[in-house]
């Protein structure tokens, strides 16, 4: 089982947004952006959203969208975990092999 996000030291960098706004935020504020399918698991959470779902990665962070039914989309900035980044890269490769489109950064 992956690390529990709620127990990690994370920063909420955007809150109560629409999913499109949170995706745009990740695109604008990340060093590298990977794309995965809905339901892709990062740490202990499956990502919710209309594909493509962006995940931002930098030297010391992973940035992703967390959607709550009543409160909308939140962008969480989590401490980088190399093992998790490798999984994200595999997810991105799978996504691109399946769709071969919509890479907008």
């Amino acid at each position, binding site marked *: 089982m992956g690390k529990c996000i709620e127990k990690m030291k994370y920063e909420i960098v955007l809150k109560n947004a629409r999913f499109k706004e949170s995706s745009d935020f990740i695109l604008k504020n990340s060093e590298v952006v990977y794309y995965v399918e*809905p*339901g892709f698991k990062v740490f202990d959470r499956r990502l919710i959203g209309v594909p493509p779902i962006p995940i931002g990665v930098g030297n010391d962070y992973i940035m992703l969208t967390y*959607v709550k*039914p009543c409160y*909308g989309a939140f962008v969480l900035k989590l401490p980088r975990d190399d093992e998790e980044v490798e999984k994200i890269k595999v997810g991105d490769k799978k996504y691109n092999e399946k769709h071969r489109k919509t890479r907008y950064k």
Partner: protein
Amino acid sequence: MRALLLLGCPEVPVQTGIALYIANKLKDEGFEVVAAGTPSAINLMRVADPKKAYIDSYIEIERCVDQMGEGKFDVDVSFGFIHKDSGIQYLATVAALSNGAPVAIVFGREAKELSNEVKEALDNCLVLWATAVHNPMELKKRIDEVARWASVLKR
């Protein structure tokens, strides 16, 4: 056959009544009905259906998505109850993880705009919508136009 009612935030009054109405029709057609949602959305359904006449079982919404992702749970049809952006995101996720057909039940003050967004986001999704907040009758009318839910399974 198994159907999932993917409930949104219960702040719009028509949601619980319409969900139970759809569940009633599903039960008549022989579906097992599972409702997923936030604890509040689930509790509203539980209180309204104490004898489980309409809903066979409940599951917390994130657990539902996780179980689908693990391949431990699937359904033949998923009804997404949508009155805000997050509802679209949850239905899109379930549609990606499930082999079943997605159906969008769109209501609330932004129903028209949201129904267009659902159509753009999801292929082969039946979208039923009405600008209903307190009064469910217009949305009920849209739902009654579908004679049998089993007919949407192989869209």
